Each structure stands twice: as structure tokens, then as C-alpha cells.
């Protein structure tokens, strides 16, 4: 008869060899029984149950973690099935978190995955403070910024329990990255915002007057024509009827201008901002994240410090490096962000500049000085009252060296900027 311990020892043979045996490469590692208990008992949070999330849940369960939580607000779409392997055609429309949890609990006996079918913003600090470690498999910059700012905000260097390691993965096509963030100790997500590429957008005047690319025609259909024809009703990008309308409208415009290349698939890609995604890249990045999680939780080998980039287009290439903290990081930095801008430019110019700044990623920023708003995009009455400020030059509105505050719905914190007018 096999006892439960015997079964465990055989089942987790590969990992237990790592945990039972000392290492000369990692001399600080102490192979003690408590480490195995810690793996069994530690509460781990997975954010996102999509392409990366499915992989992460599988990997954590097969790393011997038992108390795993997963949070995702999304439901399953047919286009997920080429990589989100815990879902089947019959699951389309169901909660990703719940379906994934049920599957893993059934397959890997002994594990208990708890689903949370909601937004990460619906949970408070008490919720997040229960976890030993958090792994993110998200496709949204906004959600990453939020969880990063929340975890950094919770971290008190005086009490180690409040420092929640955050392991973040991301993929796009054949490329991806995995990183380890130790709040207030290593560079955080916000420190690396300048590594993001500029948000793709097309100038309104190009879309309206001088279209050249099929994408310009699609943007015209969705940004300019849709509201004209449909009024307040927003296009539902998951509804084939709406996509069909946008496609046909874009196609007609393209014909008029002799532009080739408008297809249904491209229309969908542009209006939904679709990023190509495949199983293999997700597997690589998720496994890398979970490998780091197991190393951090067990101290059995040194963990990633702190960033690994992967590219698979041409051969297999990874670059592992230490991303540096930023002193003026608005989330974990020590000093205020300094910026120079021409004083004879208008507030509107400045706001446009902020929107295009890749490390800010703002959509509709509000600007205030000393608690007094200079411009706010909403509510309507306030916007109208402040609108004249947009035309004024910065020189008229403030003096050089003033500290201004930027807020935005996409920003989970306010951005303090010391503005020098030149």
C-alpha cells in the first residue's frame, strides 16, 4: 500500500529531487521539508485566464502548488480555441476563469483552483495581500499598470510580508517577454513603459482627407462614418453584422480612392486591434514565468533578475538582462518627473504631446495645477468651462518649475510633473 507521502514522492519525483538535494551552484539553498509544505500551502494568484493564463494554471498545478486563484472578467470566444487549451467549442460564452478552474481541478487531482469571474479592479488590497506571489498573463497595458501600481503601493520595505513578487508575461506573435518584479526592490512595470512602442493611430486629417492605406479607409468607416449613420450606438466589434457594415463602408471608400487591400479580416484586425497569438509562444513565456515562480517559492535556484525577452521569427533568440529602476518612476520612484516644454505652445499642444508620449499611454488626460483644474475632458459642463484654456499658451497658464498633476481614466495613479518652460 502506498501512503499519501509515498505517492507524493513518486508523483513529484522531478521537482522533489531539486528540493531534496543540495546544490553547489546555489550554495544558499537549504533542502528542508518545510519548502515542500510551503509549495503545497502557498496561495498563488493568476491574473488572466487567456492564452498565458491557461498555460500558467497548468504549470502551477504541475509544480505542486495547490491553492491557486485565478481572476478574469472575460468569456470564451471561438478565436481563443487555437491556444487556450482548457476550453472547448461547447464552452464558448462561458467564464474563462470558471471553465479553466474546473478543468485543472479535474485533471490534476489534489489541486484547488478558485475562480474569480470579475475585474481585477473589483478586488481590494485585502484580497491581494493574501497571496504569496502573483503571476500576470494579460494583454492589456491598463490592467498591468493597475496591478503593478496596487502591489507597489501595498509594499512596505519594513515588513517583508507586504512585498508581493509579481511575475509578468506578455506575448505578440512569435515574440514575448517574462519578467520578475519585486515591488520597491527591482524595476516595476511603470519603470519600463518607455519600452512599449508608440500606440498605433492615424492622424484624423489623413483619415478624413488623404487616405492611402486600407487601414485609413477602415478607420474612416469606424471613427467618422459609424457615428454619422448610427448615432449614439457604438459598434459592437464582436457582432459580425457591425463588422460587415464597417467592412463594406471601408471597401466603398477604398474603391472611390483606388486603394487596394480592404478585407473583412483586416477590418476586424484594425477595429478590434487584434494582436496575433499562438500556442507555442504562450507556452514559452508562461513556462518561463512559472519556472521563476517555483524558484522564488522554493529558493532552489536563483531567480530571474529581472527580464527575459524572446523572439522566434528568425531562429530562437532570448536576451536576459537587468532592467534598471527609474528614479522618477511615477509609481515606485523617489523623485518627481521632470519635463521641458515650449512656453509658447498651447495647453492643447501639451495634451497632444502627452497622448503621443509612449511611456505615458494616456487617452483623455486631465491637467491640474495645485488642485485647480486647467482642463478636464469630462463632465461636459466642466469641459465646456475649461475649454478656452486649450487655446492659451502654457506661459499664460503657469510658470516655469510649477508642479502639475495629470490624471486619466487609463491611469491608476496621478502623474506629478515638474514642468520647465523653455
Amino acid at each position, binding site marked *: 500500500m502506498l501512503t499519501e507521502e509515498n505517492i507524493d514522492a513518486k508523483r513529484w519525483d522531478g521537482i522533489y529531487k531539486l528540493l531534496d538535494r543540495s546544490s553547489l551552484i546555489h550554495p544558499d539553498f537549504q533542502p528542508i521539508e518545510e519548502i515542500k509544505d510551503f509549495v503545497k500551502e502557498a496561495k498563488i494568484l493568476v491574473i488572466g485566464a487567456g492564452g498565458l493564463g491557461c498555460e500558467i494554471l497548468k504549470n502551477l498545478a504541475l509544480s505542486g502548488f495547490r491553492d491557486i486563484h485565478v481572476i478574469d472578467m472575460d468569456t470564451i470566444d471561438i478565436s481563443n480555441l*487555437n491556444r487556450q487549451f482548457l476550453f472547448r467549442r461547447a464552452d464558448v460564452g462561458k467564464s474563462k476563469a470558471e471553465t479553466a478552474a474546473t478543468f485543472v481541478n479535474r485533471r490534476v487531482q489534489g489541486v484547488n483552483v478558485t475562480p474569480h469571474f470579475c475585474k481585477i479592479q473589483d478586488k481590494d488590497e485585502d484580497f491581494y495581500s493574501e497571496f504569496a506571489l502573483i503571476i500576470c498573463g494579460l494583454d492589456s497595458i491598463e490592467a498591468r499598470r493597475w496591478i503593478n501600481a496596487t502591489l507597489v503601493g501595498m509594499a512596505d520595505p519594513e515588513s517583508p510580508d507586504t512585498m508581493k513578487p509579481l511575475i509578468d508575461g506578455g506575448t505578440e506573435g512569435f515574440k514575448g517577454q517574462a519578467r520578475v518584479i519585486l515591488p520597491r526592490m527591482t524595476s516595476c512595470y511603470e519603470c519600463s513603459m518607455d519600452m512599449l512602442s508608440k500606440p498605433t493611430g492615424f492622424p484624423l486629417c489623413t483619415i478624413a482627407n488623404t487616405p492611402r492605406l486600407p487601414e485609413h479607409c477602415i478607420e474612416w468607416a469606424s471613427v467618422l462614418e459609424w457615428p454619422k449613420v448610427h448615432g449614439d450606438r457604438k459598434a459592437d466589434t464582436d457582432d459580425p453584422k457591425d463588422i460587415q457594415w464597417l467592412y463594406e463602408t471601408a471597401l466603398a471608400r477604398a474603391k472611390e480612392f483606388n*486603394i487596394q487591400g480592404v478585407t473583412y479580416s483586416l477590418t476586424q484586425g484594425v477595429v478590434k486591434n487584434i494582436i496575433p497569438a499562438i500556442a507555442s509562444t504562450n507556452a514559452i513565456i508562461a513556462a518561463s514565468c512559472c519556472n521563476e515562480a517555483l524558484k522564488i517559492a522554493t529558493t532552489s535556484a536563483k531567480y530571474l533578475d529581472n527580464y527575459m525577452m524572446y523572439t522566434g521569427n528568425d531562429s530562437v533568440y532570448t536576451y536576459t538582462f537587468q532592467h534598471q529602476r527609474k528614479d522618477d518612476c511615477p509609481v515606485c520612484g523617489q523623485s518627481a518627473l521632470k519635463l521641458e516644454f515650449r512656453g509658447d505652445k498651447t495647453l492643447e499642444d501639451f495634451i497632444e504631446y502627452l497622448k503621443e508620449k509612449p511611456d505615458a499611454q494616456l487617452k483623455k488626460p486631465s491637467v491640474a495645477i495645485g488642485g485647480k483644474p486647467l482642463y478636464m475632458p469630462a463632465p461636459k459642463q466642466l469641459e465646456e468651462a475649461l475649454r478656452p484654456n486649450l487655446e492659451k499658451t502654457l506661459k499664460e497658464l503657469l510658470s516655469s518649475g510649477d508642479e502639475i498633476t495629470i490624471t486619466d481614466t487609463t491611469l491608476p495613479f496621478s502623474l506629478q510633473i515638474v514642468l520647465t518652460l523653455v
Partner: protein
Amino acid sequence: MDAKTQKYDRQLRLWGGNGQEALESAHILLVNASPVGCEVLKNLILPGIGQFTIVDAGTVALHDVGSNFFFDLESVGKSRAEKACEFLSELNEDAKGHWIKNDISTLLKEKPDFLDQFTIVMVSEVTQELATKIAKICWDHGKTTQAKKQISFVWVRTVGLIGAARIVTPEHTIVETHPDSVADLRIDSPFPELDAYWRTFDFDTQDNLEFGHIPYVAILLKFMDQWKKEHNGQTPSTYAEKNQLKALIRSGMRSADDENFEEALSSVLRSCQATVVPSSIKDLFSDPEVENLTAESIDFWVLVKALKEFVADTSKSAGLLPLSGTIPDMKAQTDSYVKLQSIYKAKAKQDAQVVAEITGRVLEKIGRPKNSIAFVDIEAFCKFSAFLKVVRHRSLESEYVEPKTEQIALHLADPDSVFVQYVLLRASDAFYGDHGRYPGENESWEEDVEHLQGNVATLLESWGVDKEAVSPERVHEICRYGMGAIHNIASLMGGVVSQEIIKVITRQYVPMNNTVLFDGAASVTGVFEL
């Protein structure tokens, strides 16, 4: 959009309908339902591989359940091949799974041509001896049949925190390498239609709106033309000369905000580079496959031959490759942009037609019908002709018999190189040869360190490399791993290997050559040509 296009939408944006078709007609063999082998299959079944077959004589043990997602506790004692096939098949109804509960060596004795039906033969949890034997069958098959019928061989394994994979494809030709950009603007050597185009813009009389929308290509062509006239027909070559061209362009601006002029200025350095046939493509021209073209040659080499003749016929090609016909977006009015685009496209089509004519002649000469390569394929070949790629992997046998000792010494001289893991895996294979088991498998694992150290030394000596090149700590570490399978490492290698297999099957993007190593302790990978 049909249901299949919806399901595969996110990948079709990477490899298109032709890549998908190639996947759907592929058949993959997995020898042994190891954790890493099943992970590779998972990542191929999901995107819709046509068929897969698992050959495994074993039954599911508890350690399989702890490291492989395609077994559960109830699978213990059942056939590994059958159970893995069952759970993997659930992933995608489009992929057809087969399983054979047998040992591959026995199977090959019964059916010597068993491997012939597969696109890819992947082995794991096999000895070096067996891997070499199977690799040789695949290699010889490729030599005796048309290159179209090659079988690619993959050997993948994980040991503790280490992962390794070796690919053997005797010859892999790629047209769609997916470079970042295929734009080829010919500013230094405009063809007549392009030269006529920029002259349609009157830089002096246009109003400011029109002037601000002159495409930057026309701006570059105009000022390049002026520069050439002033310099005996030469293009700027030195840094100083390129700056002079920039100054010339700047002098033509009406206001500092002319975006189109800014675009022109930022393209000066690139545009001054002479358009030439890249050396990598010239190398293809002198490839033995081109010299010795036969009716059995694959289309790729027929087209390279045609390309070579096209370039040689300077009256038609000016000694350059066919034009790609693609231009980037630029500030311009719709009409002038579309006009410019159509000029490049028309020239590309014209070039492709010339290449097609030559192809017809080449085909006839080798005894194939002159229209046996479709024009769309010739067009695509021409479009990507500057980026064609041929990857030739060495056989596994030559890796062992004729080791690249100079490169090996260089890799080992780098203390941070992940290459040391290769030495340890090879030494572990030698250890297996001595003991019939792998180092560190038993409770008394530390007793194996010394013997393995000896295997390492023997191996290094055989390469003529410093015996101390691998530290005792590292030898100790691989004994610590004791051949244990850790799922994270299996999953990571499963991702890497499936990605390489997709590249091989779709003939898109560029596969690695020929060994990838991952060290999960250091979180680094390396690719080595062995």
C-alpha cells in the same frame, strides 16, 4: 467568415492560408509520450496539425502524472501511448490522433519503412544510440528521395532545469522569411517610370498644401538627381556627402514643419546605399543545386536559377533583383500615393514576368513542362527574392563523428555560455553507456559525480579542449537533477520546439540551426550549430 477561419484567426495573421494548409497536411510522429513530447504535440494540435501518431511501449507511472498534463491519477498503469493520444485528441477535432503501444526499435524491425509516412519524426526519452539510429533513417530517406519528401528529425529532452533540442532537416528552403520590410525604393538608380514620376511635381509653383504633400520618395529622387548632376552621376558615398545631400534637401523646404521633407531627410542614409544583389543571394546563385539542376530539383532551385539568369541579363534587370513592388506609407495626397504605388507594382509585375519567361525556359531544359510553376508563386518568389534563405542542418552522425572542435572551444571559453549544458548532456549519455542508467537517478546520487566528471573529461579531451572547462559544481548540479522531469521546463521546451516545427512545416520564418539549449536556473537560451 467560416468557423474554421474564426477559430484560427489569430494564427492566420502570422502564417496565412498557405501556412495553415501545410500544417493541415502534416503528420507528426512522437516516439515516447514524455512530458516535453506531449507539450510539443499540444502546441501543434491546437493550431490544427493534420495528424499525429504516438509510439510508446510503456505504461503510465506516478512520476508521469506529476509532470505531464495529459495523464491523470486514473491513467496510472494504462498505456502511455493510448492515454496521451486520448487527452491530446480532445484539444482539437481537426487533428487526427493515432497511437501504437509498441517499442520503436521493435516496430522498425517489423516495418522498416514505418517512418516514411511522417513529415516530422520527434523522439524523446531515448538513448543517444537510438536517437542516432532513427536520425540516420530520416537522413538517408531524404537523400534517396526527392527533397520534397524529406523527413525532419527532432530530438528533444529535459533534465531537471535543463532543456535541449536538436533539429535535423537536410535542406530547408524558405521564400517567406517575413523580414520587417521588403520595401526596395531604388532612389539611387530609378527606373524610367520612376524618374518620370518625380518630374510631374513642380516644386516651385505648387501651393503650400500640395507642396506639403509631395511624397518623400519624389523629394529624394529630385534632390538625388540634382546631386548626381553636380557630381558626375555619382551618388553620395561618404558621411560628409550624405550630409551635403541632406542640406540640399533642407534648402528646398518652405517651412520647418514640412513633414514630407522630414520623412525624406530621415531616409537619406538608407537611400544612399547602393541597390545591389545581397551577398547571401549571390551565394545561392553558385549553390551546387543550381549548377546541377535536374527534373527532380525542387521549384525553389529552379527559381533561383531563373533569378540568376535574370540578374545576369542586365538589359532587363540592370543587374538587380526583381523589384518587390512594396512601398511604405508616407505623407501624400491619395492620388499621388496611389500613382507611386502603381508605378512600383507595375515594375514588379514586369520583372516577375521576365523571371517567369526565364523560368519556362529553365523548366523545359530540365524536361519539365514550361508552365509547371504557377505565376503567383513566381511573383511571391520575386517579391521576397532579397530575403531567400536556405538552412542546411548537419546530420546527427556528423555531430558525433566530426565535431566542430574549434567552435566548441570558443563556446567553452565563455564562462556564461549555456553551452556547458551540452557537454553535461553528452557526458550523461556516456555515463549511460557505462552504467545503463543516467547520473543522479538513485538515492545515492552524489556518488555519481566523480564518475560523471570522468565522462566530462574524456569528452573534452576527445575534442582537444581544456579538461577543466566544465566546473565540478556544474557536474554536481546535473547529478542533483537526476534525470527528473520538471513540467515547467518540459512546457518551455515544448513551446520552443513546436515553434521550430511550425516554421519547418509552413516554410515560413527561419528555423534555428541546429541545437537550442535552455538553462532554467540562469533563465537563458543559446543556439549552437553542432
